[in-house]
């Protein structure tokens, strides 16, 4: 089974802090994705990556950056956290674009 893990289930940060969310997949998938999930808005794509060191902006990249130095690891970075970035963050991976994606358990981030 594909396993996608995220570094934290719950995270509380202060406004202005730099925040790192880590995601690791163990199935040698080429593609990795970061979403945020908000009630009534569904999932919105922040960034995705289809290869090491490659990244593409999704629908809501503002305020975020990503890093993919190794195939299995995809990091989401909030350069200066703000309260409107309080959300559930979901990482996913897939073998092919854009076939079924496998999701991690999510990180619920609260920015105070």
């Amino acid at each position: 089974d594909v396993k996608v893990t995220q570094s934290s289930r719950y995270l509380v940060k202060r406004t202005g802090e730099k925040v790192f969310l880590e995601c690791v997949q163990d199935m040698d998938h080429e593609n990795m994705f970061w979403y945020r999930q908000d009630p009534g808005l569904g999932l919105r794509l922040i960034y995705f990556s289809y290869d090491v060191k490659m990244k593409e902006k999704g629908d809501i990249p503002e305020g975020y950056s990503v890093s993919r130095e190794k195939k299995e690891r995809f990091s989401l970075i909030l350069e200066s956290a703000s309260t409107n970035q309080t959300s559930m963050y979901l990482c996913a991976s897939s073998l092919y674009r854009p076939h079924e994606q496998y999701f991690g358990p999510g990180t619920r981030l609260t920015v105070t």
Partner: protein
Amino acid sequence: AQSVAQPEDQVNVAEGNPLTVKCTYSVSGNPYLFWYVQYPNRGLQFLLKYITGDNLVKGSYGFEAEFNKSQTSFHLKKPSALVSDSALYFCAVRDRDFQKLVFGTGTRLLVSP
């Protein structure tokens, strides 16, 4: 742009009754459609997909979905609901650049005993 709509925020059904969770799509070209489920405090799990072929697609946990081109719909169905089916369900469509999925806003399914 490719999009999906889930017109119901919540669907309530009694255990043992059939359930339907609705999804309509808007695409240019042939649609690739997906259903995912999210149980409480969990990530999303893939249920099923339609790419081509038979309009009735069978998936995990006894779910199936019916692709209807004339009505541009891809409704999720199950003949007999279980309390454990209570979860958040998302419909998704492949975007036209073939790079990513576009998700709907989700429908909460509540199955009562």
